[in-house]
């Protein structure tokens, strides 16, 4: 069965006809040709497909595209204006929080949600907070450091100018 859906992705409105069974991740990657969102498993364990849906981190491999009708989605391509880094992107770069880069978009978008709800997390809260996202390369030490740096930077940005 086909459905017409309209959603906003990275600020752009898109309309499309999708099958009932079309997964959101395939819609994003194949229909919209935005390949920054990755697929690493079939069981929503690895988190490589994480996007922000209405501001919440969601694993797009286990979310039907039709269910995203009317939603606002942010993928890694839309996190920061071209040529600039979001503080979390900057922190992953500064702290060497990525190696192969495959888990990185999901890890960064998960961090956006984590820091929104807990702007000043402890190390343990960070580790639990990203435990739905697997990284096989970094051993997580530097991802934790990156999230700590990003939390600090984002707190500074939020402070009103004196």
């Amino acid at each position, binding site marked *: 069965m086909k459905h017409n859906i309209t959603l906003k992705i990275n600020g752009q409105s898109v309309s499309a006809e999708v099958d009932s069974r079309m997964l959101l991740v395939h819609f994003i990657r194949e229909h919209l040709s935005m390949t920054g969102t990755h697929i690493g498993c079939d069981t929503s364990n690895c988190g490589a497909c994480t996007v922000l849906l209405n501001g919440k981190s969601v694993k797009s491999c286990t979310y039907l595209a039709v269910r995203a009708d009317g939603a606002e989605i942010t993928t890694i391509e839309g996190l920061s204006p071209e040529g600039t880094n979001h503080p979390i992107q900057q922190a992953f770069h500064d702290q060497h929080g990525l190696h192969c880069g495959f888990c990185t978009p999901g890890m960064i978008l998960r961090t956006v949600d984590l820091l929104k709800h807990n702007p000043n997390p402890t190390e343990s809260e960070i580790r639990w907070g990203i435990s739905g996202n697997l990284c096989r*390369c970094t051993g997580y030490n530097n991802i934790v450091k990156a999230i700590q740096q990003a939390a600090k930077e984002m707190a500074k940005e939020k402070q009103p100018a004196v």
Partner: protein
Amino acid sequence: MFKCKTSAEVGGMGHSVKRKEDARFLHGKGKYVDDVKLPGMLHMVMVRSPYAYAKITSINKDSALAVPGVLAVITGQDLAQYNLHWMPTLLSDTQMVLPTDTVMHQNQEVCAIIATDRYAAADGADAIEIEYEPMTAIVDPFKALDKDAPLLRPDKEGQKDNHIYHWERGNREKTDAAIAKADVVVTERIYLPRIHVASIETCGCVASYDKDTEKLLVYLTTQAPHAIRTVVALVAGHVGLSEEKIRIISPDIGGGFGGKVPVYPAYVVAIAATFLIGKPVKWIEDRSENLTNGFARDYHMDCTLAASKDGKIQAFKVKTLADHGYTDSSANPSKYPTGMFSICTGSYDYEHAFAELDAVYTNKAPGGVAYRCSFRVTEAVHAIERMVDKLAHKLDMDPAMLRLNNFIKKDQFPYASPLGWSYDSGDYEATLKKAMEMVGYDDFKKEQAEKRKQGKLMGIGICTFTEVVGAGPSKDFDILGIAMFDSAEIRVHPTGKALARFGTKSQGQGHETTYAQILAEELGIPYTDIEIEEGDTDTAPYGLGTYASRSTPTAGAAAAIAARKLRDKGKKIAAYLLEVSEEDIEWEVGKYFVKGAPDKSKTIQDVVFAAYTNIPPGMEPGFEATHYYDPPNLTFPNGAYICVVEIDKETGVIDVKRFVAIDDCGNIINPMIVEGQIHGGLTQGIAPAMYEAIQYDEEGNVLNGTLMDYLVPTAVESPHWETGHTITPSPHHPLGAKGVAESPTVGAPPAIANAIIDALSPLGIQHLDIPISPDKVWEAIQAHS
């Protein structure tokens, strides 16, 4: 310690410059194989066997072909018409591309569905009707050798049983005699289970054959694109795919760890499909296909270690049974069926050793890849490091003291090991002492004594390993006859900026940064002015790829030597420009100057510009160099790791309190990247130590073929790693460097196992095989209380 020769702006060796490759990954602009989309591209899905061992009695394609969008079904019978249904493995065995009559392991490829999109292909795979006649699978490798065991490979001429090969190294008689005479002997059967690299990107390809130009282009998740090109030409040359018409592109790779070295059957099917259909074909493995195909380890090792009563190690013996699945598709150098397993004598100075191994066929997936270690080094190190600990407990000696008393001393290098390696350099004593100091070993020993009085379980585990990486010298090391050199090609443009290409292929190791730093070190051109390319066989110089920690030892060395060729040419140009003889020119990073007159100088950029604009008479224009580096020896990185654990007696839960890793990988190119590699390898060390093992039931069904039940550590299971270094340069490497990224995967499992077993030792527990999970600990506690 290493002192930087270059400024931070130039960014040569020793600078923790930020990675040049990060930007594309941070912004979702990495290009991985599944991101490739070609016009008219079709999708392929493999249909796989539900049985571990079965006859295929029929395949009915019609029901699949009736599915809208399904264009073709390819079976083994179809490939047999082109003699493409079998392929050779790297170790002279044969592997099915697709079966014509029998399946040999669960989830083996049975046929391929080609469709217009991946959903239609999956529907076709669902619809196809295949009938099997299941047979009794051989799952236990020991039973594979029973006299009445069915013969699994009757297709192989002369094969009378399920034994594949016997291998041995060392002197059996002298080792047996030394063991017989020794005061103290400890023995243990140690099993290193089957595990999977589980890189977050699975394997896949996009194969595209153009019938007009007769050119084949394959985007492939491979760590060794050139070797694959040659393999494709050798396997499919008879149907017209000749090597100059084949282009392999290994784009961004989402982790490799050895799992992207082999040629998987589906690659060959995709190539056959595009060749027959003339349209691009994409195949992307799903996670369950990934976890149930290919493997690492699966060694059953019977170990014996002998020593004098005062704790001097005298002899080591190990007899291994290796479960290879239904074919030996180990990704090893040709002359090394057991990889570098003979490093099993470890970091200790003694005379007698003997290692032997028998490999057998079973109804399991083939593989034999590395899981982030140089060929079979993890197995070897686990054997010796567990046995040294067992010896320490038997002698009631401090395991650190026992190691310090037996280490090869730093003035004994180069050290001829009992099984034939020439260790290049190390200072094992300093490395262990640094680790003991950093962790606070003596204090922990006291704390442990206190806790034991209170009935608490606390353990301290040590591993002092020696790795052997960087294959390798061409006299010994080849893959399918191709010597294991590697290469670098440097082009410096007229404006002094450079492009360098390599035969290796990064999968996250940061080559685009570290290779640029090597060239910055050697030429004085800022690393930011140097672009690095790898992975395209049409443009990169031939090389054997990236695995077994070989990139720095081989291609890194090639970069240094190619740069030095350019520096020599530059010296001639500088002499011409400064109107002095070449002998009067001296080099310091980034500039040539006249001896005794440092103000008379030309920068490297001046000299490069002249190479294109003001060429000395008779000199070949341009500023380019290539080098193919054949290493004189392997490199022997080493380290001392200490792990402290506490165990909850009631639940068996293991808390890793501290983990200190001191590594010695010689001179360091980028400390930030090296530390990052160590962190990652440590997590891939705790993974098999505590969580990961591919499990089979008696019928050969894989019990944990998804990431729901194959437990890849998250940030919660992964402890905070503490790292440090000692630096003993490699005497034979042009930069004094050694490989590094796999040391932690090798060193961490025995350190963790030793810590857990040390914690449990007051209960009388002397050994547990990894993965040592809480339930295994709990059961052991119950059995011993």
